[in-house]
């Protein structure tokens, strides 16, 4: 054990001496690893950035909220089956709430209807198009992670009365009121005046597809009055205990079947969606992107590893006589194996450190140039990169080190 330690120390010293003695060669070889590590690390930061963005997007949906909708969130093959389903009505929410109130052991808290359209919103000369206009009740705030950074949400009186009041999203507020305070100003939604009572705090985008902040919430009766009398809607249902989501979902399906009056032999003509459903659809996509990305960037590291292997073979060849001498002086096979493994590993570690440094700089510059680009540099990533470097060194150094350790001392000593 002690001997192993001494030999290990000796091997590190030799490796350092070798690098000092062959600076150019070592740098060029390490360059392969540097490029590989930069590529893999950047890919890693992008993947974890995407993951974090994804989780953030998901959390806006809420882990404890079920969505009653016509269409499932997952991809469907038999879309015609869903197309002909009856629309979900706003009135269902009230019926559901009655049933929830009637059963004290219910896993559900409250059902909220949400009707929506894309409309333009205007204040004086400023206009925002394609704003997500959401008609709902004052209970919406219970099912949402949104909070108001200024003002308040729609209250119950306004909600029931269908007053012309609205809560605007962060981006809408930003676009319509670049300087002033939006509270109590009157904005035009599709030509109808609504008084701003609150401004939402920033939510970010959903998977970079659309912004949660390009939103205007108005009372449902006002929505019906001005935009659609058809009372088509989705229904959000808040769950009491998110660990019992499955039970809650079953219960909600049962309630919805009662609302729809479905006989037992008929299948559901609605879908209860949840955040998890999204995840299960998107996870495979996300994972295959990650695997493909890491594989492709991994190839560059592989090329670097071949460089290391090559140079270690050269090193073994050049120092055959030295290996012979060491063997004559009592170096065992594992001593020589260790020596060359450490040499290749040391090269890879140096490459790894430099690569990580560059990757970090690149991350910083990307983050400052494109703030929305999902990138995330973490300690875990540093450790993984170092581990990958060491493994690269060990794997690429093994064949040459093995060759060296197997050299016949007599042949090695005679080698010129």
């Amino acid at each position, binding site marked *: 054990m002690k*001997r192993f330690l001494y030999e290990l120390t000796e091997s590190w010293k030799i490796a350092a001496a070798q690098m000092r003695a062959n600076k150019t060669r070592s740098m060029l070889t390490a360059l392969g690893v540097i490029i590989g590590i930069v590529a893999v690390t950047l890919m890693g930061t992008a993947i974890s950035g995407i993951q974090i963005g994804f989780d953030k997007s998901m959390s806006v949906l809420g882990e404890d909220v079920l969505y009653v909708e016509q269409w499932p969130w997952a991809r469907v093959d038999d879309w015609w089956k869903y197309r002909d389903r009856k629309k979900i009505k706003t009135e269902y929410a009230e019926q559901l709430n009655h049933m929830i109130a009637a059963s004290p052991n219910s896993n559900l808290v409250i059902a909220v209807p949400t009707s929506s359209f894309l409309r333009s919103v205007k204040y004086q000369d400023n206009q925002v198009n394609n704003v997500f206009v959401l008609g709902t009740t004052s209970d919406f705030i219970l099912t949402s992670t949104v909070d108001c950074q200024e003002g308040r949400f729609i209250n119950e009186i306004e909600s029931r009365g269908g007053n012309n009041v609205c809560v605007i999203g962060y981006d809408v507020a930003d676009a319509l009121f670049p300087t002033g305070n939006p509270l109590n100003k009157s904005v035009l939604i599709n030509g109808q005046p609504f008084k701003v009572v609150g401004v939402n705090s920033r939510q970010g985008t959903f998977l970079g597809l659309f912004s949660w902040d390009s939103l205007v919430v108005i009372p449902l009766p006002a929505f019906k009055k001005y935009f659609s009398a058809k009372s088509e809607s989705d229904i959000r249902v808040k769950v009491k205990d998110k660990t019992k989501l499955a039970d809650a979902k079953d219960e909600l399906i049962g309630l919805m079947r009662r609302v729809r009056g479905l006989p037992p032999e008929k299948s559901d003509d609605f879908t209860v969606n949840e955040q998890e459903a999204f995840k299960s659809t998107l996870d495979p996509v996300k994972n295959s992107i990650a695997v493909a990305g890491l594989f492709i960037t991994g190839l560059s590291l592989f090329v670097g590893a071949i460089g290391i292997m090559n140079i270690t073979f050269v090193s073994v060849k050049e120092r055959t006589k030295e290996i012979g001498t060491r*063997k004559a002086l009592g170096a065992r096979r594992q001593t020589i194996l260790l020596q060359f493994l450490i040499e290749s590993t040391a090269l890879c570690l140096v490459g790894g450190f430099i690569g990580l440094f560059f990757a970090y700089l690149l991350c910083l510059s990307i983050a400052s140039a494109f703030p929305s680009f999902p990138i995330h540099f973490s300690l875990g990533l540093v450790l993984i990169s170092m581990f990958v470097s060491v493994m690269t060194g060990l794997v690429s150094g093994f064949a040459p080190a093995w060759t060296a350790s197997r050299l016949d001392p007599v042949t090695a000593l005679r080698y010129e």
Partner: protein
Amino acid sequence: MNAVIAPPPPEIAVPTATQPRGPVVIDIENISRHYIMGEETVHALRGVTLRIHRNEYIAIMGPSGSGKSTLMNMVGCLDTPSSGRYEFNGKNVSEMNGDELAAIRNREIGFVFQTFNLLPRSNSLHNVELPLIYAGIDPETRERRAMGALQNVGLGDRLHHKPNELSGGQRQRVAIARALVNNPSIILADEPTGNLDSKTGEEIMALFESLYQNGHTIVLVTHELDISRHARRVVHLRDGLIESDNVA
């Protein structure tokens, strides 16, 4: 001169009229070694029997192709015989594997090469420490013993010089210090003066002489008659066989 390099512990010698010798260190019996080169089999040794006692000074001589190098590799435990038996200090070496042989070389044999075989990028001290590293000796002891060995060969002031900063004679002295540092049973010197001018060569031979006087066992492999004259016993090889074995 010799303070650190302890002479091998005295054992009960069996002096006879003709052979006033210590115990047997190397006991080679009828060994042969052949190599297969393509279709041909080369018989480098064809049955050599050789016994070397403690504190002998023996020269192995012979022209190239005589099997001299092969015998040296056998004696040095760098190679194992194709047939025959080789015992080193009573241990059967002919059956040992690579790592066991490495351990024997490390502890029992001090090599001195014609081309010195020093590590070019290491200083004298580190070169001499090398066998001690492989023996698993701790750093402090290593340095102390290596310094002692270097002082004993007269290089106490060249501890931190690298081989290219030393003369040929000094390099060979470093190599001898390295051979001695593990207190080996034998010193195996392969043409130790081959790369030196004759004056420096004589100095090195004087160093071997003093080592011998201090109780070391020396096996010298050479083709130079002048050099072999320093030894007390000369073995001549020819065509893989011992031609003569004369005690001076």
